[in-house]
């Protein structure tokens, strides 16, 4: 028999946060859905008006067919609305043969929905059409030891390299680092509003697989590291200023409190670090895509995922290979969750696939052990950086197939214990 017990605090907090996140997500989707529905009613009215202009008042025979991604369940409502709107123009729908035939086709093209009406009187067919918004698709995601949770932060069609948020009194500010600009947003009435935008000037072309990182500045607001460029952001609650210069300064790898900042040089024309560290510890590493710091019994160790696909750990000035990391992709970040050993390494998946995932690992010795189920993503990971306080990570996922256009979603990934 189970003994009665209090609900653990963390779980209660989780449940509350989960419900809030769910409500926010629902409201977001709900709002977009409401827009689509409102647009649809208006467009049905517009279509009815155009049909009436072609057919004139009288009896008509109406057929509707769907060649678009609208579900079959939506058709009766559309038909009902159309019949109602047609009636207001004196066009009455009947099954009688000999009446004017109206064939409405719910079609779609690259830009969205296209509703086409063909009005046939005798052998003459006249055509009218209107463009329509299509409702948003909804996505579900399942989670499974330690559970990884992603909370939506931001999304846009332009590539995102990193984001950073800061508290501004009662409000908040978010910085979004893109390949060609830095954009600041402030939170007002629950929504982000664009505040300022700064072009990133650079003398050399950027690489194709563009990467960049936003970090809190020392004595100023932030630093943005990009290949061959360093941007420094300063300002106050009101206005920001950003200045960018061509720079080969090494990028900070770790911002862990109480440890010296480890830096590494980034190859300005490629998508990886050169393998030269600052300070250098007197050793040369293979070029690597990413690095993170994890606490060990006798201090800290650094993990590097090399461009050769091997993951190595540097501890006490020695470098050893990490086993069990064959499934790791190019991006990794350590988070201090308080679960399990206290720190987990998040790693993206390896290989080439349309859908990616992020999974949490612990490395007790020199072998990586998965401690969570993979967190499935609706796209591929383009960036994974630890947050400033190290409790979570910023994840950027690129979704959308070639034909639909790319879409970048930013998530905060954290680990939940249970």
């Amino acid at each position, binding site marked *: 028999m189970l003994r009665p017990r209090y609900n653990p605090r963390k779980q209660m907090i989780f449940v509350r946060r989960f419900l809030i996140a769910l409500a926010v997500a629902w409201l977001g989707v709900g709002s977009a859905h409401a827009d689509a529905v409102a647009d649809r009613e208006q467009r049905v009215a517009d279509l009815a008006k155009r049909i009436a202009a072609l057919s004139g008042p009288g009896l008509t025979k109406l057929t509707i067919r769907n*060649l678009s*991604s609208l579900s079959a369940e939506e058709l009766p409502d559309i038909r009902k609305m159309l019949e109602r709107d047609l009636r207001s123009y004196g066009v009455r729908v009947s099954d009688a043969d000999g009446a004017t035939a109206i064939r409405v*086709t719910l*079609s*779609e*093209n*690259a830009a969205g*929905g*296209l509703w*086409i009406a*063909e009005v046939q009187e005798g052998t003459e067919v006249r*055509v*009218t*059409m209107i*463009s329509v918004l299509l409702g948003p698709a909804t996505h579900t995601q399942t989670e499974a030891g330690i559970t990884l949770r992603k909370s939506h932060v931001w999304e846009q069609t332009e590539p995102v390299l990193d984001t950073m948020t800061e508290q501004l009194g009662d409000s908040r500010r978010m910085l979004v680092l893109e390949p060609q600009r830095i954009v600041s947003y402030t939170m007002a009435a629950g929504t982000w509003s664009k505040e300022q935008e700064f072009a990133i000037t650079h*003398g*050399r*072309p*950027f*690489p*194709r*697989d*563009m990467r960049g990182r936003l970090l809190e500045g020392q004595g100023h607001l932030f630093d943005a590291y990009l290949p061959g460029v360093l941007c420094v952001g300063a300002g106050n609650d009101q206005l920001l200023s950003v200045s960018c210069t061509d720079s080969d300064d090494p990028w900070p790898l770790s911002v862990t409190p109480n440890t010296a900042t480890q830096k590494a040089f980034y190859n300005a*024309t*490629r*998508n*990886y670090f050169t393998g030269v560290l600052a300070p250098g510890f007197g050793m040369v590493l293979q070029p690597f*895509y990413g690095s993170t710091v994890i606490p060990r019994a006798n201090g800290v160790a650094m993990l590097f995922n090399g*461009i*050769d*696909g091997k993951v190595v750990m540097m501890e006490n000035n020695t470098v050893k290979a990490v086993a069990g990391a064959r499934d790791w*992709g*190019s991006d990794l970040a350590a988070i201090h969750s308080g679960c399990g050993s206290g720190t987990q390494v998040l790693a*993206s*998946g*390896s*290989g*080439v*696939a*349309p859908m*990616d995932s992020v999974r949490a690992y612990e490395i007790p010795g020199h072998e990586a052990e998965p401690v969570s189920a993979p967190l499935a993503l609706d796209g*591929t*990971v383009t960036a994974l950086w630890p947050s400033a306080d190290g409790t979570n990570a910023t994840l950027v996922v*690129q979704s*959308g*197939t*070639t*034909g*639909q*256009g*790319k879409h970048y979603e930013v998530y905060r990934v954290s680990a939940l214990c249970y």
Partner: protein
Amino acid sequence: MFRRFVISGVLLWCALGASARTRQHYGGTLRVEVQSDPWQEPDGIARRLTMDGLTQIDSAGAVQPALSVRWESQNDDHRWQFWIRNNVQFHDGTPLTADALAASLTQACRYGCAWSKVYTLGQSVVFTSDLPIPDLPAQLAQAKFLISHQDSQGAQQGTGPFFIAGFPGGVMLFTANNDHWGGRPFVDTVEVWPRRSIRDQWMDMSVGRTDVVEVPAEMLRQAPQQHLTVLASRPENLLLLQIASTGSLANPQLRQAIALAVDRSALYNVIFQKQGEITASILPGALTGYAFLFSPERHLNRAHELRSGATPPQLSLAVEGGNPAMQLSAERIVLNLREAGFQVQMAPAGGKIQPDIVLRQIHLETTDPRAALDEMVEATGQRVSINGSDMASIYRAEKEFLATYTVVPLLWLPQAYAIGDRVRDLRFAADGSLLIADAAIEDAK
């Protein structure tokens, strides 16, 4: 049919949208084999490797900056100004200037283009036209407007992601441009083997001697049986009949009779092995959403009615391009027309006598519906006037154009390549060009 088109389109695009989880490696040589001349205008593979346009089409079909960084429309789209990207050089080291751009565009325009004048204004080029050209940025992304200049030896120099490195043993060698404004390509070298037959290409692929080979639409079904991994685009090559509006076929009723006599289903089912889409529209349904309004059905009786009383002399039908599938298609169309009472003979390709009917394939680059209609109609040597920018205006303009029966759209066909195991992230741009600069070799370090 439309649904099948959408489903097949989605499948293809899903395949094309497959992107990498592990970051791309730099280095290695990508080997590509083609049947045609890689420098063939307008869209030979070598041109896209070595040249850039003023604008480019992204994977979603949107117009994006390339050699121009921004543009502005003035005077109701009668005047356009494009500002050029700084610090770009042609491969011979000559800086890209507004003058060089204007000269290149004027040269490209020798067979006609949408604007009446192009001139420079500081670091910008200005286009003016008597008619509004709302889709000019999309038009400028087309391969025929790729920018180049002639060096002192008379060779064409571009600003593209690859340099021409030489032609050892008939192989065209291209090396990565480290200073390309769009970033250095991932591969170090691209080898293009020109004028290789499909049989030789597939043989080389089967023994791992090449990385990219062509797959004609009619062989798309065969490729997986040969264990080839296929990358197919959405349907973007239009198979059509172009009918002369003068001479024997000056009477539009006769041209309409030809249009109604053609059996598209036979071409689709038998010759092209159910690849692509049957169409009677000059624009793909996925682009406009209204293609079904143009019926592709065969109406032999109606064709007879239209022809009766007007028996033309013997007609000639020629094939442009002349690959086996096109030849077979032409032979079948000749049979269709004979069934409708026409006397038709196949004419030799490139003959001295102008044929009455030509079977052609036209490649569609643009993804903006209005610019696409302009592009396709222009490819047939004609002009169309579109009054308005909404879909209904485009439909009306297309309907009016097709009602002349000088062009009979038959099938939309995809473009396809077979890709070797070590190639990753090779994709099509929305305009149907291969994005080789974004491709990487898996075993490169």
